[in-house]
């Protein structure tokens, strides 16, 4: 999360916005986000439908798998990576996406 926070100015440059989604409740996310200095939205999805939609809900577990997804302005999923975010890869992809889409 902190890596994304540090990159916000670059996401802004590429017309991208970042949100985090977790199964934690709102109160937990609020304190967690504040403790890390995160200023972008952290969404609470305790019912896990987002996890099911993105296929990152392990059966029988109360958590999501870790996945980075980039959705373009048309709502099309353009990038999916599991595990810890590869920030440089994400930035390069967003730069390319921004360039190929013109000035979105």
């Amino acid at each position: 999360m902190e890596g994304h926070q540090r990159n916000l100015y670059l996401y802004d440059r590429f017309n991208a916005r970042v949100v985090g989604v977790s199964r934690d409740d709102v109160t937990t996310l609020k304190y967690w986000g504040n403790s890390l200095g995160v200023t972008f939205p952290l969404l609470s999805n305790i019912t896990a439908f987002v996890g099911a939609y993105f296929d990152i809900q392990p059966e029988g577990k109360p958590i999501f798998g870790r996945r980075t997804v980039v959705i373009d302005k048309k709502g099309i999923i353009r990038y999916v990576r599991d595990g810890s975010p590869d920030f440089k890869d994400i930035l390069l992809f967003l730069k390319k996406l921004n360039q190929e889409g013109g000035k979105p």
Partner: protein
Amino acid sequence: MKRKGLTILCLMLVVTWLSGCATPETSKKVPYRMSPQGMVIWEDEFEFSPPPPDWKLLRVEAGENDVTFGFMRPDPGGFPSVTTFAYDEDPFGCTAASFEGREREFFKRFLFNAILQFQILERKKVRVVGGEGLAVIVEGKDPVKKEKVRAKVVFGKRGDRIVGFYITQWRPMEGSYDPSAFEVFDKFVASFKFLKKSFYETL
């Protein structure tokens, strides 16, 4: 008003923080070479004066893209007598954009597992890597384990982003610090140069 939100980056969090931990470095290639002038050229990206041969190279962390490396030297005396210093492109994962903010975050987490009682001994503005920086010296003590540590951190900037240099010297409570190690660290920091723009500056 600037158009915003046209691309959305969604992140799925894992509640188990283990996935964010650093993974062991598996690179087989030596990441440095020596210049004819005796300077270390690190991945053609940094240049610095190497410490004396009794300092062992450490690749402290290579996770999540940013570079961290340093040197370690076991010191005479009982446990935990050791000195470590490092260059860190992502100092302790903090997010503050100012040196003062980064300092607060840094010490909130720095050696937090050790649960030390910290005292700031010195804080001053410095010149580092060709720009303004902030140097802070602290001492931490653990009266239960009867251990202490003296640490110095130097924050500087590479492009828009804050980078850090830090040294820690651990001692048993009755042990004495070795100032020569801090001189090695200061020489390392003073000699440090960026040979090219960072990835972030080229975007």
